[in-house]
């Protein structure tokens, strides 16, 4: 088993690597197309801004590479958003693996519940249907930090309520994605990563 973590100009890629270390899984952080294509599984992590990251992916020809991957791919946070068709963050067309749109959270007005943006902290995942999740994970807490979201749609694999119910995870064919950070979600997150590794 060899996992490739796609290296690009995103923040805190190391934490995904550390999480795989804790699970004892062999992996590399790489931008080498051959190494990514030949890996058993690919993780596309992400913290950062959508339009500048898309620009970087295009300049380094990583965009077409990711879209054409055949093995299981897991996008995380910004990685998931970039796998959608368009992001409001910087008004940029994205990879289009999922035909969903990425929109900015709007604060309710008035705001009696003192709702904040970014959506930051631990929230529940429900209505799970994807091999990333087993039934014991229904209603568990995972860690989120994001200001943009994907609405619920045909590829929604987990739902989280915040301002409105949104897609906490997506799944289509060999492509999996989570809006939350499994690598930072304690033991629950480790189990989700293990489920991905077992695919």
């Amino acid at each position: 088993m060899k996992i490739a973590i796609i290296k690009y100009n995103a923040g805190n890629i190391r934490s995904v690597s550390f999480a795989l270390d804790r699970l004892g899984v062999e992996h590399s952080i790489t931008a080498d197309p051959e190494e990514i294509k030949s890996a058993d599984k690919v993780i596309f992590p992400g913290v950062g801004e959508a339009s500048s990251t898309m620009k970087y992916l295009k300049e380094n020809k990583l965009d077409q590479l990711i879209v054409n991957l055949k093995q299981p791919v897991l996008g995380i946070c910004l990685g998931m958003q970039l796998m959608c068709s368009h992001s409001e963050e910087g008004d940029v067309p994205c990879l289009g693996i999922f035909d969903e749109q990425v929109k900015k959270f709007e604060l309710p007005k008035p705001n009696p519940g003192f709702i904040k943006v970014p959506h930051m902290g631990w929230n529940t995942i429900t209505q799970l249907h994807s091999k990333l999740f087993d039934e014991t994970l229904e209603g568990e807490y995972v860690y989120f930090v994001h200001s943009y979201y994907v609405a619920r749609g045909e590829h929604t694999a987990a739902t989280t309520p915040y301002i409105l119910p949104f897609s906490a995870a997506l799944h289509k064919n060999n492509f999996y994605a989570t809006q939350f950070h499994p690598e930072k979600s304690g033991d629950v997150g480790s189990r989700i990563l293990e489920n991905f590794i077992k695919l």
Partner: protein
Amino acid sequence: MLAKRIIPCLDIKNGMTVKGIKFVGIKEVGDPVELGALYAQQGADELVFLDITATHEGRKTFVDLVKRIAQHINIPFTVGGGISEIKDAEALLNAGADKISINSSAVKNPQLINDMARNFGSQFVVVAIDAKHFEGDEWIVTVNGGRIPTEKRLFPWAKEAEERGAGEILFTSMDHDGVKQGFANQALAKMSTDLSIPIIASGGAGSMEHFKDVFTVGKADAGLAASIFHYKEIAIPDLKRYLQAEGINVRL
């Protein structure tokens, strides 16, 4: 539903936890990774590690420590203390820190908040504010651990920090800190109304009820404390069960 967060804070000097720590098997001056892992296992939602080292050598030790924390602990953590330049933040990001907290350096050079947010994203930037109550709605922002008053006032400064790109505010009331009589709930509630980013409350935790109040009256998104956890006056699992029974949404 988004859970209210409980955040233990560890002071670090030369790579070790300082202040008395009353945990079985952990020495009074102990390994922060060991203590952090214990808190994570007990249900802490995040951790904060504050470097109070003054020397260059101690600083290098801190970056090494951050890497060990990132390797061993599977919940988010913030690091702070002595971060005044982009390159300080970059070293900590590369070591695996999820967020950095800036305090005095942001007061001296507010542009630092913009620069940090642009380089690393707002989610990486916590602006910590230490303030002392003056009169009415006026709180004086202090630096150097509360010792030096500045021209800045709490509410305008918090708003400015948000506008410059801070992802969260960590507010410590110097009047409440260490007194264990509860958090500065009125000021916190005003800040939570004024700002649309999360507020972490710090200073004043002495009982489980104080945490209930900081979330209900103070409208805080997270409650931070140090000594009550280190001295085992309150255990995190007990605190969370209490809060849940009081109708506050926590991660159990």
